């Protein structure tokens, strides 16, 4: 494993939402750290709490109904859940940048692209409007938008989805953040554009030693650009580790299930897809034991009532599954 210094540390994060139906425990005790210059991918199905986790880091959870009930997020030796300002300046948009999933709805439709990028620069770097606008054009050029100068004075509806996502990346990296959070940045895009954007992001990362948190549900994308992977299920991290370990030595039945549900492209071979039957747990009443118990093909009695402990598979590879206990009767391999 590559030794890199830690850029951000999340410990024991709990997030709840108050709704008419009751309290949803969306994130339940998530701890991880991300390292400088590396890409950490968070994978899991809809509703597993991956977006809520990064939104809590950014302070984007609407309160109410949302509530961070426990936990700390350390960035530059400060708990940013309590205080978003370092040296009197908001770290959001300057030291931590964020790219959202849907480029069509995340930009302001009534503002020119260049103005939206310039706004970030004005706010955080204190440049004048005209200087900020010039810098915005440079940034749009940097993210490979053709005719950046002309595009800067156009509105979002005049640009394609790929170009809008590039503009959003320009906004996110305008202040050279040390962490870039990308929430499903390429889900809405074609594979060709996706591959362009992913390679651009990793070029930027090499240049600035930027840490990237990438949320995705596409294991193909993870295999391509992630260094470390967190697998989330039912509001918890069930497995985390180096990308090679996660793929080639999957140690949680859920990770294995995800892999078996996808087609592989090995010549001359047609495997049958094995779907994960059932549905994710009801987070109004989260399970007392393992959250994957209901769908797990190798569940044991202990799994129903007892939360699994964390087991070390190898250095930098941990999983929360009872099957790794030394007295476990079932093993899933």
């Amino acid at each position, binding site marked *: 494993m590559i030794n890199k210094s830690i850029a951000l540390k999340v410990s024991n994060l709990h997030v709840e939402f108050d709704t008419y139906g009751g309290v949803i425990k969306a994130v339940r005790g998530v701890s991880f750290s991300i390292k400088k210059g590396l890409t950490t991918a968070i994978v899991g199905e*809809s509703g597993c709490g991956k977006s809520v986790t990064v939104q809590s880091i950014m302070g984007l959870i609407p309160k109410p109904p949302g509530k961070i009930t426990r936990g700390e997020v350390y960035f530059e030796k400060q708990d940013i859940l309590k205080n978003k300002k370092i040296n009197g300046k908001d770290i959001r948009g300057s030291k931590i940048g964020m790219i959202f999933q849907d480029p069509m709805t995340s930009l302001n439709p009534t503002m020119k692209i260049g103005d939206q990028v310039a706004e970030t620069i004005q706010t955080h770097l204190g440049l004048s409007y005209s200087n900020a606008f010039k810098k915005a054009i440079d940034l749009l050029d940097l993210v490979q938008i053709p005719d950046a100068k002309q595009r800067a004075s156009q509105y979002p509806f005049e640009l394609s989805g790929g170009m809008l996502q590039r503009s959003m990346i320009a906004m996110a990296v305008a202040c050279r953040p040390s962490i870039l959070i990308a929430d499903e940045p390429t889900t809405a895009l074609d594979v060709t554009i996706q591959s362009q954007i992913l390679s651009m992001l990793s070029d930027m990362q090499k240049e600035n030693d930027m840490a990237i948190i990438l949320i995705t549900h596409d294991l193909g994308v993870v295999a391509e650009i992630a260094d470390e992977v967190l697998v989330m299920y039912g509001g918890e991290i069930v497995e985390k580790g180096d990308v090679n370990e996660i793929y080639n030595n999957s140690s949680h039945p859920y990770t294995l299930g995800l892999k078996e549900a996808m087609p592989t*492209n090995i010549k001359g071979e047609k495997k049958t897809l094995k779907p994960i*039957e059932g549905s994710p747990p009801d987070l109004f009443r989260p399970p007392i034991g393992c959250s994957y118990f209901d769908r797990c093909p190798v569940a044991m009695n202990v799994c129903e009532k007892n939360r699994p402990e964390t087991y070390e598979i190898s250095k930098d590879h941990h999983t929360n599954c009872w099957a790794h206990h030394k007295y476990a009767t079932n093993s899933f391999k």
Partner: protein
Amino acid sequence: MTVLIETKKLTKHFSIGRNNTVHAVDEVSLRIHQKETMGLVGESGSGKSTFGKALLGLHRKTSGEAFYKKKLLPNNYKSSDFQKYATSMQMIFQDPYSSLNPRMTAGEIVAEGLYLHTKLNKNTINQKVSEWFSLVGLEKSYMSRYPHEFSGGQRQRIGIARALIMEPEFVVCDEPISALDVSVQAQIINLLEKLKTSLNLTLLFIAHDLSMVRYVSDRMAVMYLGKIVEIGNANDIFFSPKHPYTQLLISSNPEPEVSLNKKSKLTINGEIPSAINIKPGCRFADRCPKVMKDCRENTPKLKPLKTTNDKHSVACYLY
């Protein structure tokens, strides 16, 4: 193999005023054999959904012909035509959220086609609907629920039941899984495969997930800006693509495998150009890494490759 569906130079243009025309589908000729799954891939804006809809009469064809079992399909469908073909051809839509009427119960949605297009009585219809609910893996008691009470995967199952209860021979699946989670995608694909075998269906499977299309399809066609640029057996197209566009498209497909020596990838620059007022010549010429002089002057036609027993066709001057 008998040909079930055939199109000859099927064209769909949309006029958008000021003498501008969107060339969504341009002279597409395609044969789909009985009991075969034909995959159709391409980027957004390549015209794959429009082709599927024009084929079923959901869009009026600008020119060209479509045949079902060698019978010419009408150019402009009247309601009596829909009445006639509803039991032969059906469609499964992309978005399981907007394609179900929120004011009808799941049972009513699935039953509607039978009420409109068959003369079955109410009891038989109810019985059939409940049979179909269990066939697609939904509880019978869900018949009285409304669409908002279902998850995305369950809604897609309702969409499948609605289409297949008519017992069609040919089904257009327009990106049936792109809105779903990976674990649910596999459930829906396995369900479609199972029903396909038991009902002897012929499918046109439109999607942009190349791995999934290779997985489900027997043959595969690649569309670019309204034209088919390559067609052949799914495995041949995937593992030995011939057209420069297909090569780039397949190289961009993220593989869910980690290998220590990451293969070098071909990347394609730029985006799919607009389909408004297209220039003559090969439509891929501006982005093509192997562009020649000829490509900008003449449009290459889809030609079978001699080396593949005419099973693999490509529209490119390189061959």
